[in-house]
């Protein structure tokens, strides 16, 4: 059962991240490829508080979420000044910078060695050690995140964000506060990513920079696009599917010495075919 549980927990963590990415990239149209960096800051912060026993899990999660709200606003700020592809590349830069900090700020992050021995999460002093308990915790978190996302999409704020993506100038001309809407979206996305980091760190009990690098950011984008941009269903589907895919591919029998490369190759082919034949994703609106 632990395999299934650990798969569900990781997928749920990625759902929170998917919601964050979807909110920024899909809905607000802020094409960020540095979400893994924000995720990482959340993970390192929660790990830090739990390991030094300064805070319990829930307070640590709140602090991490708050910090990531601030951070995400800062890293998406350039999007107000730099547009389109220029922002994508700026965002690349931010991601690479973050990886350098995670790897080299050894005192805070354990550097390339990572931080082992992060305590399990606790609910007001009661430690949750078994994978079964963690599944429940993460499922609740995912449900709250999903609900928030769904409510938001139905609210006027959601419509405003969509309108901004379609035509920013028109929205501004209509007297709406574009800046405030974008900053709010970034803040919410930051909260999602930061708390996802907290669940990730406590579940794995280990963090190192390789979980928060450019590959991770790109995986997140892929999850959102494959699942379907701008929908709740898409943000849930993508992570569950893309996390299961490598596991399913191990069903394919290949001579061992090249098996791993062949499976990655199949993954690439599937990605291409999927983009060709279902570019809107499994449950998405047309991008």
């Amino acid at each position, binding site marked *: 059962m632990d395999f299934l549980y650990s798969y569900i927990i990781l997928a749920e963590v990625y759902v929170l991240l998917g919601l964050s990415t979807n909110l920024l*990239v899909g809905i607000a149209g802020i*094409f960020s490829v540095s979400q893994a960096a924000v995720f990482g800051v959340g993970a390192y912060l929660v790990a830090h508080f739990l390991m030094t026993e300064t805070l319990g899990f829930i307070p640590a999660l709140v602090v991490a979420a708050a910090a990531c709200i601030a951070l995400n606003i800062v890293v998406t700020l*350039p999007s107000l*000044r*730099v*547009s389109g*592809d*220029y922002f*994508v*590349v*700026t965002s*690349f*830069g*931010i991601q*690479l*910078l973050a990886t*350098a*900090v995670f*790897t*080299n700020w050894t005192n805070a992050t354990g550097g390339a060695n990572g931080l082992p021995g992060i305590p399990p999460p606790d609910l007001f002093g009661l430690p949750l050690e078994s994978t079964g308990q963690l599944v429940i915790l993460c499922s609740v978190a995912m449900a709250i995140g999903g609900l928030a996302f769904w409510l938001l999409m139905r609210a006027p704020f959601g419509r405003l964000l969509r309108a901004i993506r379609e035509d920013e100038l028109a929205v501004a001309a209509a007297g709406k506060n574009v800046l405030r809407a974008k900053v709010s979206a970034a803040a919410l996305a930051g909260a999602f990513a930061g708390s996802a980091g907290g669940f990730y760190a406590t579940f794995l009990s280990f963090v190192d920079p390789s979980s928060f690098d*450019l590959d991770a950011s*790109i995986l997140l*984008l*892929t999850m959102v*696009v*494959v699942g379907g*941009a701008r929908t709740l269903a898409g943000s849930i589907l993508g992570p569950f599917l893309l996390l299961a895919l490598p596991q399913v591919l191990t069903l394919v029998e290949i001579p061992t010495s*090249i098996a791993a*490369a*062949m499976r*990655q*190759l199949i*993954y*690439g*082919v*599937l*990605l*291409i075919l999927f*983009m*060709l034949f279902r*570019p809107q994703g499994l449950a998405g609106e047309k*991008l």
Partner: protein
Amino acid sequence: MVWLQLLVNGLVTGAALGVVAISFALIYATTKIFHVAHAGVYTLAGYLAWSLASRGMPDLVSLLVAILCCTVVGALIQHQLYARLERRRATHLVVLIASLGALAVIQNVIAATYSSNILQFPVPWGSRVETFGSVRLTWTQILTVVLSVAAYAGTMWFAHRTILGKQIRAVASNPFLAEITRLRPQRIYVIVVAIGSAIVALPGVLVPLDLGLQPYGGVTPLLTATIAMIAGGVGSITGAFVLAVGIAVLQNLSLLVIPGEWSIGVTFFIFVIFMLFRPTGLFAKAR
């Protein structure tokens, strides 16, 4: 005199990186596609040349065949993948994910065929050293600079002095207008990606000649080249080349003042700040 040797090494690395940047710039400025699979083409060039050279082919023939093959591969990617996506009106994000898929395919075909070991070219003349005052350079490095500068000059000549080059620039600046004048943008796109792939094959062979081949080694140069292109100003071949050289020199010389583990971080930090103050790049033309 360490700084002098560092400067010269930076120029050598930068010249090769500059060719990657101009090839990407050519493709990006015209097709507006974030052609990540370009990193795969770059890597493929080295492996093809290695295969031929280690089977006793003359070095020059190996290089030329590799360039030819890459031209074909590039044209195929545009014609079979990007053109299809374009017909289905796929968004930038979808094209990017498809391109990532293509990159995964190329990288893993290489890994499955050649294994992941670092391969060295069987060219003993390459590591012979020439001394200029206190500066030492290998033949490979000298060849890299000479051919890279030639490639830059050739590309400039091609883009500004030939009819095809002018057509490409016409399509790049306004595809709709070009279509009206019967330039058939889709045909031009295939040609552009083919040419870009041919150009990138040159550093794709020269860099591994010096530093060895790795199946997943193309991503970092491409990323740095992309940043050079954006910072240089999209559409400016000179901008891309100069900025690539600048970044490489900066990374080399920065070692004099900061530890090497931070040099990538600092480079990207400078880049992010730069983008905030000069969002359209250094060499951008008025838009």
